[in-house]
């Protein structure tokens, strides 16, 4: 069968939803970060797909590289925050970080 744009978009959607699901339901902070990576990667897939099947050929790819870079930076920051959380709470269970509860 011919692999069209919609296949890629669908994959991206599935990845996106998985990522959202992971973010919302993981108790482990690092798991949350993994979910965030999934979401970002789904966005990347979208970019690449549109770069191959529509629009200008290389813009999407450049954006994808930017996103990867940003994802890396953000993952570093995120891990630093998880480290801070671990130092404060002695755990990385996100349900433990409810000190800001009103």
């Amino acid at each position: 069968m011919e692999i069209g744009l919609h296949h890629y978009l669908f994959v991206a959607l599935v990845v996106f939803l998985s990522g959202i699901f992971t973010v919302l339901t993981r108790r482990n902070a690092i798991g949350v970060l993994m979910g965030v990576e999934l979401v970002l990667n789904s966005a990347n897939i979208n970019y690449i797909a549109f770069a191959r099947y529509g629009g200008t050929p290389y813009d999407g790819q450049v954006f994808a590289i930017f996103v990867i870079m940003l994802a890396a930076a953000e993952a570093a920051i995120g891990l630093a925050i998880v480290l801070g959380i671990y130092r404060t709470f002695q755990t990385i269970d996100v349900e433990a970080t409810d000190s800001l509860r009103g």
Partner: protein
Amino acid sequence: MSHPIEVDYLRWIVLAPLLGAAVNGLAGAALQKRFGKHAVSAIALATVAISFALSVRAFAQLLGLAPEQRFLLDAMSKWIHIGSLKVDLAFWLDPLSSTMILVVTGIGGLIHLYSVGYMSDEPSYWRYFTYLNLFMAAMLTLVLGDSLLTMFVGWEGVGLCSYALIGFWHKEWANASAGSKAFITNRVGDFGFVLGMFALFWTLDRSGQGTLVFREVAQRLPLLDGQMVWGIAAPTFITLMLFVGACGKSAQIPLHVWLPDAMAGPTPVSALIHAATMVTAGVYMIARLNFLFDLAPDTLHVVAVIGTLTAFMAATIGVAQFDIKKVLAYSTVSQLGFMFIAMGVGAYSAGVFHLFTHAFFKACLFLGSGSVIHALHHEQDVRHMGGLKKHMPVTFWTFAFATLALAGVPPMAGFISKDEILFKAFSSPQGSPIIWFLGSLTAGFTAFYMFRQVFMVFFGEYRGGHHGHAGHADEHAPHAHGHVAAEPHESPALMTIPLVLLAAGSILAGMLNVPAALGGHHAFDNWLAPVIAGSHVPHAAAPATGEHGVTGAVEHEARVLEHDAETFAHDVETEPSEYVLMGFSVAVALGGILLAYLMYYRRSIDPEFFARAWGAVPYRLVYNKYYFDEIYEATVIRGTLVLSRALATFDRVVIDGLVNGAGWLVRQVSALDGAFDRVVVDGIVNLIGRVSLAIGNRARGLQTGHIYSYLYAIVIGVVVIMFVRLL
């Protein structure tokens, strides 16, 4: 009197003693401590001497003027100018007031001199002389004032000084209470005086001519014609009210009760105030306003009746008294009654002449009794005296001559003046034989009780106790007493010189007004003629005042007086009535003296016989002064106390109740207000706070602290945005 002569020295007659009082009052205690008592008395005597000298000068000035022009005015300063009331501080000298100021300053000066000796032991020396000078100033204001209001200032002033001096030894309650009694009784009279003043001003003001100045009132008399006050003819009402004031000041019934009690003061005070000057103020006032009283024959009747009653009753009381000063006090009341009899029958100048002579002999008598009291160390009961003739000769002889004058024995002054009054009482159209008879009887009683006193005090055996307290030294004793039974001795010269001078006056003063019947020229009456219309028939209103002014009226009066003198002389030649009356009064006087001689010298009639006669009722009646004080106590005084207690209860219950109730009301309102503040206002504020808290509580629910719920919110938000296409 169209234009009185303006002078400016009359004010010093009043101001000099006033200054003396001020200096002694403010600095007297200090002066006395540093320079001794003589500094104080020197100041007091100097001011009186100045007043006397100026009075003599004024008198001389008057003598140099024609009789119709004998009027001096010293307008010192403006005082009250309100509406139609114009009263200035001005002093008025005419023959009447010049006579009075000579009496006041002259006899006052002698009494000041006497006081230096009499009060020499007194620590409050300066206070005495302050009050004495103040009294002189007030009395001179009374006499010299040119309006009723100025006279009233002096009137009140003498009342005040009388109070202060009667209660001088105020540490004894009896003295202070006697002072209060004098002042309060005077005050009752003053109420009448004030009403009279108001009525006079008001009735004159009905025609827009209200005034209280004497010479202006005299000009405006016709305005009072036909005017009524409370249903009584205006002149009658006014004069009646003024007479009430005179009763209070001059101790006539029913306001006489203060004078005997006033003897609690030092004897020179009794001599000055309660014999010679203050008590004569009422007589002077009537003489001053004779033109007004002439319009009110009814009042004159009342005056004559009260004068007669007072004279008679006081004389009967004097018969039974044993205190040397009380006898003299009742004698004063009685003689004042005589003066009012004279006023009441229209014989104004006879009354003033009796005032003049009475001042001499009564002052002499009081000072003489003071000399006796001083020598016997404040013994005043005549039953403890006797035989003082040989110990105190000067006192005795002066006292004797003054008593002869008072008893009305010729040729003493008292005879001339009293006889004049009795004659006028008999013969004047206003008089009546009844008045004459009672007056003569009174004269008889007077002679009797005065000589009773003379015999009991100066003759016989000395009945006094041993009062020479061991070692009691008299500072002014000419010889020292070392032993216990000290003999009474004559008083020092400072005290006896005034006695001699006053006794001389008692003898000689009569020469000033010898009646035509005895070959004289009525000099005193003529002297007073421009002021007083003599003793002729009172008429409805002064004639010719409208056109000719008061000059015309005075000339008219002078003509009337001459006419009277002619008819009078004519009458004397055709009617021997005056000689008969004269003889009768001499006989009555001698009879009284004889009775006293038999009862108290020869002891051939026992006084006890009279005391026990008719069940002792008459004796007890007069001994207890007709129970006047007791009656007043039971009625007026108790009534006033009951009223005051009722009013005090009203004040406490009603008025305090209202005030406290108002306070209670305020407290309740404030409690309500507080409740409102607490419940409503605070409630709103608290409500707002609680609402905020509630909202916050709800809102807090959003802050779960869980990351996933925040992420849920983000996702939902994105979905909403995407599907609602807000982006």
